[in-house]
């Protein structure tokens, strides 16, 4: 479980790390949208190239990134498999009893898996390169206009920031609880699905109790440090755009143009 690095911040000082979080959020949105615009190989080639460049500039080790999403591979594989088996088209490639695989199915499976894969990596790059606080600051500022309609933007941002802060803490705790229960003879690799599900009880209950306790204590600690919502709060690191952010926006704009052109052309 410790290997789940998704959502964690990778602390190096790269160009990408120094960008304003809003730029990275917008890039993630643009990137994911572009993936769903069309199915064509050129577009996916460009997406791959852009992602590769992004990773290179971010100086986050490739190994670290792929290890982080390892747990999601099964999910991607399953989705691909579902597509392969359920999407039916004209040209049958393979048929056996009730299973029929068509060309359309194969293409759907490939594209869906690739999309999911790019989407996960693309958006997790945002969290690898941005501290959760910067990320929520960015979101808070971008969505600031919604406060006028009584949407508690600051509160949501705070909740998210705290959730991210406690992900590694709870992951470590989960690891510890699992080991402790293993020491009491539980074997997670044994039994059918139902039996295995039942084995989660001794893990999840202590985790839940601990999370509740932690949140109570944290709330008290925040109270003690004079937290009283977003009103009248100042920032240590207020967001303001630098030259590099404008350049980045320019590049994102170019990418949008390229995607549109490619979609029309192919």
């Amino acid at each position, binding site marked *: 479980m410790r290997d789940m690095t998704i959502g964690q911040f990778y602390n190096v000082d790269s160009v990408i790390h120094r960008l304003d979080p809003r730029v990275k959020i917008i890039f993630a949105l643009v990137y994911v949208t572009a993936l769903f615009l069309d199915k064509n190989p050129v577009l996916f080639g460009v997406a791959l190239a852009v992602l590769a460049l992004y990773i290179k500039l971010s100086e986050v080790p490739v190994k670290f990134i792929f290890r982080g999403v390892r747990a999601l591979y099964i999910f991607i594989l399953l989705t691909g498999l579902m597509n392969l088996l359920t999407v039916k088209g004209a040209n049958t490639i393979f048929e056996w009893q009730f299973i029929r695989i068509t060309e359309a199915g194969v293409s759907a499976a490939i594209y869906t898996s690739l999309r999911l894969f790019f989407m996960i990596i693309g958006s997790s790059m945002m969290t690898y390169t941005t501290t959760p*606080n910067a990320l929520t600051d960015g979101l808070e500022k971008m969505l600031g206009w919604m406060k006028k309609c009584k949407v508690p933007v600051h509160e949501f941002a705070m909740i998210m*920031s705290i959730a991210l802060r406690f992900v590694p*803490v709870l992951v470590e705790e989960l690891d*510890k609880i699992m*080991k402790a229960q*293993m020491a009491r003879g539980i074997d997670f690799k044994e039994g059918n699905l139902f039996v295995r599900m039942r084995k989660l009880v001794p893990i999840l209950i202590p985790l839940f109790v601990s999370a509740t306790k932690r949140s109570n204590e*944290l709330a008290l600690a925040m109270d*003690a440090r004079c937290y009283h919502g977003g009103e009248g709060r100042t920032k*240590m690191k207020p967001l303001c755009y630098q030259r590099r952010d404008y350049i980045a926006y320019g590049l994102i704009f170019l990418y949008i143009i390229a995607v549109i052109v490619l979609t029309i052309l192919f």
Partner: protein
Amino acid sequence: MKLIDIKNLTFEYFRRDAEGNLEEMIEALRDVSIDVKQGEFVAIVGRNGSGKSTLAKHINALLIPSEGEIVVDGLDTAEEELRLSIRKSAGMVFQNPDNQIVGNLVEEDVAFGPENLGIPTADIWNRVEESLDTVEMQSYRQASPNHLSGGQKQRVAIAGVLAMEPKCIIFDEATSMLDPQGREQIIFAARQLQKRKNITILFITHHMDEVIWADRVFVMEEGAVVAQGTPKQIFEQRELLERCGLRIPVMYEYINFLLGQGIIAAEELQNVYGEEDLIALICHKVKRNLENGQASNETKQLLNESIYRKNETENKKSETARDGILLNHVNYIYNHGFANETVGLRDVTLQIHKGEFVAIIGETGSGKSTLMQHSNGLYLPTEGNVYFEGSDIADRDFAMKNLRQKVGLVFQNPENQLFAETVEKDVCFGPENMDISRVEAQKRAYEAIRLVGLPDTIYDLSPLQLSGGQKRRVAIAGILAMQPDYLVLDEPTAGLDPASAIELLDLLKELQLKTGITIVMVSHNLVEVAEYADRVVVMSDGSKILDGATKDILCQVGKLEQAGLLVPVGIKMLYSLKQVGFDVDVTKTKQMDICGELLKLKEIFSC
């Protein structure tokens, strides 16, 4: 000037059952009156549940009195609109280092308070800078809190409070989850703040040795203040403290002994505060006496006898691979093959024999927990082998389940892993995983609960209803119910108050002697190790540096201190006496035996 003025504070709350009916009224604080002057260092001590934390939470208006009043810096905590100002002037450092850090980077966390106060950005940077400097955490300002040690996290928490420029800082059991080094760091930081910045300190703890430096001490029991005075006045009331579940500092046990024997006089203790002062005092006296040649020949002869005793031959146990658990040249590397790989263990060879009480000691991060988890196959060595009674546990056909049953592992704070709705079901969980019948499992559970000294009435209670010490016993019973031959415990006394800690250790010793179970205790509390362990293994930076009988290991003061361990005052005292040329047996580790050695001082001083 009075900074905090508490008058006749009473706090009660109601406990309700699931339907909201009143179950009972709990009086957490009864008629407490305390006043604290600006710049004072005040300690509040008491066992778990004595009301000391409840009192602390009243001072910065996290709780509001049912009766009586609290005025902090001229502000009444009952007035809602004053609360922010009160919390600004009375900051609080909490017990759990993790649960009070909000920021994802050290500097962002320190800034959290000032941000809430609406301080301009440029000033926030100054305050963060200054606060981190004060607690000497400047070099970690860009680090993630998750990568810090407990002591470092608490220092960040102190910096976070400092950045709000408070007049008073309340340490609410801020040291109870830390290792000895961490605790020293926090006490040092608190004293510096008081001395250099004239910040009032309220230090809440159940470790009496932390309050030696306080100006005044308040003792709490069942919600009331039962004693107050200077530390020295408090330490004299040994019986009262014991009734309150507390223990006077080990150093004062020796002082009382030395005073009682007439080896030192009360007026000599005027400038004695810390352990170093006491040791220096005694050594100085001894040196003067030895130089004056006052020690008679007769005494010298008597002293020399102890040297012969040391040379007694030990009957070493023959080591056979069939016996016990053997770690053979074990290396363990975390994240093996990745950029962030770190060495956990380096070439450790260790045999644990049946029936012994072994302590594995070392500072945090020295590899002792990693080592412990090799004993029942939770970790398999990256290199080397682990043998359990002769079979390699990495073998394909090795019965791992059998190993997990034979070697019971009790993790740190094991009560956090309780999950069932009743104590009985929780204790049965282990045996039931062993594929035995339900009836047999229950039988074993009952035996285990009795073994840990809990009453039969506890079976049907929910683990959540128990006290901290009881929960820990239930958790240990959960392991004992599997009827292991080896019981491996990680910091079994961490977080317990002194009385519960001693009870638990006595229980472990009794188990070892009565049932022949092997006890392996991972610890960094050398006072406990000195009293209870037969054998000590010292870990440092992933390697085993010392291994042998307790008496032979604990006297190697220099090596232990190099490994980052805090050597108990008694052992240090004997060691220092030996250094100045007074002949004592430095292999004594138990407090009683050390006192016996110190008696020899009487003979040179009396003539």
